[in-house]
């Protein structure tokens, strides 16, 4: 935004000066606030602008702000599922939530699931991106194939992997059982967790891969050539030059992988394990849905939503930090 601030002094000057000279110093106090992100050449029809903004703002008010406000307010009351009776209970919902062993288990699972998913996804995507950057023949074909899962819904990824690892009919489960592993995600919690991770990673590697391939392409060839003259090999060049230069992209992807793991794996879990066995794959988002829609425990569900909201806000801030850094480094 600093660029926009600088250009304001040049262009929008005439109207600004007349207003500030009228004795109103507000414009000088908050110079960027009033015209940040405004084009130097702009129009001044407030009613037309309001009309253009109206659809977006109306939709946001009805389907974003009112629901978000309700989610916040519901977290502090006790509601019975059938009537409209609400009793203000303060932080009781939160205290009950944090005291509940189920919730802590769910949080622990979500955390380690997100971390493992993140590391594996990024590692595989990095390996594929490095290889794609290196090979010459067949690069486009490899890229098209590895991209495919982007088009596939998390639920479908879940359904396909649930089939492959189905203990009764799945071909991969058959192989595992043939070598003596008693594979059964319906009974063994760890199997179920592994299954959810596999399906989530399979669906998401392509996303990281696209970004890493683009970032590696943007690494200046002159730097790599200079390193070659200094005697650095391919692997050394990758880790000493490319990786540091694409750190902003990697940071951005770490944040996005967490967002994906937290919020978008609902479909995978619902298709494969429904949170089971015995809550072993009950992620935080899946639990909000379970408690709110299946068990109708609205107060607890709302409190869980608020916790997730805080997490989501933190990740959004991090994501924009990452985007900013990306711009600054010019990669």
């Amino acid at each position, binding site marked *: 935004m600093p660029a926009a601030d600088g250009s304001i002094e040049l*262009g929008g000057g005439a109207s600004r000066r007349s207003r500030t000279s009228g004795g109103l110093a507000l414009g000088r106090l908050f110079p960027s*606030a*009033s015209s940040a*992100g405004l*084009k130097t*050449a702009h129009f*001044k*029809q407030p009613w*037309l*602008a309001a009309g*253009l*903004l109206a*659809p*977006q*703002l109306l*939709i*946001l*008010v*009805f*389907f974003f*702000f009112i*629901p*978000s406000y309700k*989610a916040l307010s*519901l977290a502090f009351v006790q509601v019975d599922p059938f009537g409209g009776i609400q009793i203000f209970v303060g932080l009781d919902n939160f205290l009950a939530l944090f005291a509940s062993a189920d919730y802590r288990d769910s949080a622990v699972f979500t955390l380690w699931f997100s971390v493992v998913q993140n590391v594996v996804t990024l590692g*595989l995507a990095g390996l594929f991106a490095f*290889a794609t950057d290196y090979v010459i023949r067949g690069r486009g074909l490899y890229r*098209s*194939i590895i*991209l495919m899962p*982007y*088009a*596939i*819904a998390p639920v*479908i990824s879940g*359904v*396909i992997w649930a*089939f492959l690892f*189905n203990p009764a*009919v799945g*071909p991969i489960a058959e192989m595992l059982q043939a070598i003596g592993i008693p594979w059964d995600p319906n009974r063994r919690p760890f199997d179920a967790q592994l299954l959810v991770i596999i399906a989530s990673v399979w669906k998401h590697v392509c996303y990281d891969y*696209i970004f890493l391939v*683009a970032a590696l392409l943007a690494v200046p060839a002159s730097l790599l050539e200079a390193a*070659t003259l200094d005697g650095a090999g*391919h692997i050394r060049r990758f880790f000493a030059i490319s990786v540091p230069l694409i750190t902003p992209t990697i940071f951005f992807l770490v944040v996005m992988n967490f967002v994906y793991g937290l*919020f*978008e794996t*609902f*479909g995978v879990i*619902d*298709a494969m394990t429904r949170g089971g066995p015995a809550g072993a794959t009950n992620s935080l988002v899946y639990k*909000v849905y379970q408690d709110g*829609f299946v068990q109708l425990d609205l107060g607890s*569900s*709302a409190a869980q*939503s608020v916790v*997730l*909201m805080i997490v*989501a806000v933190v990740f*959004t801030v991090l994501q924009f930090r990452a985007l900013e850094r990306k711009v600054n480094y010019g990669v």
Partner: protein
Amino acid sequence: MVGRSLTLSIFCHAVLLVGAAAVCLPLYFALVAGSLTLSEVQQTPFPLLPGAHLVDNLVAAWNEGNFSRAFLNSIIVTMGIVVGKLVVSLLAAFAITYFRFPFRMTAFWLIFVSLMLPVEVRIIPTYEAVADAGGPLRWVVGTIGLGGLVESLTGYRIETALQWNLVNSYAGLILPLIASASATFLFRQFFLTVPDELCEAAKLDGAGPLRFFWHVLLPLSRANIAALGIILFLFGWNQYLWPLLFTTGPEMQTAILGLKELVPVSDAAPAWNIAMSAALFVMLPPALVILVMQRWFTRGLVDAGK
């Protein structure tokens, strides 16, 4: 050209072949399973080559899951999301970058804040909002006393007119998914990079804002619109949680929901052959889109950071 080594080349090809196989094999097994009969799919060892019943299974799955209706629903909802979100976002981004008006920054922050909370964390209140979209208006009408006034004058109760239940309607499936400002934000970023001279020239030529928008800004944004349209298409087609909550009957189901219904649960006959053949045609439209329009899509995705 930087020097190359043969071993590393071979290693890289091997890595990529493994990656490509990891992507293709699950899809291939889905195809195989989709072409078997119910008894063949249960046999061990699992057959490695497709059977002869793919078409039978496709037809059976299509009818059993009521996919004629589900595909129609999916197409309407997806198109509604794509077109709706693009139109709403383009207009809002245009207003925010090209107009000086009171509360401009307030409007910007209101839109920006909505990027922060994904749909998943506010599902229950949003469900209520969709089930009773007229609720807030009734509250306003009641609070300012307009309802009582109108009723005493005309005998007509505004409150009864403001009962909108959007559950099981296309509006209920589409509108909440448009209610995030990611696209608005992207178009704003793009508009900020458009040269100022274009707008000045348009103004000198006597073009009003709408004319400038239609004849200058929209044609310039074509690449961004295409890229974002593809991403939104995939987003809309692959929606699961929303339609799961907001539809109760089979007549409003989307294709993804129809597929999920066909997946065998533990105590039913394991009709995985039907489920897998359904998976094949449910993922076909997004797969085609991504294959045909890959160039637009990858560029747009990286630009968007979405």
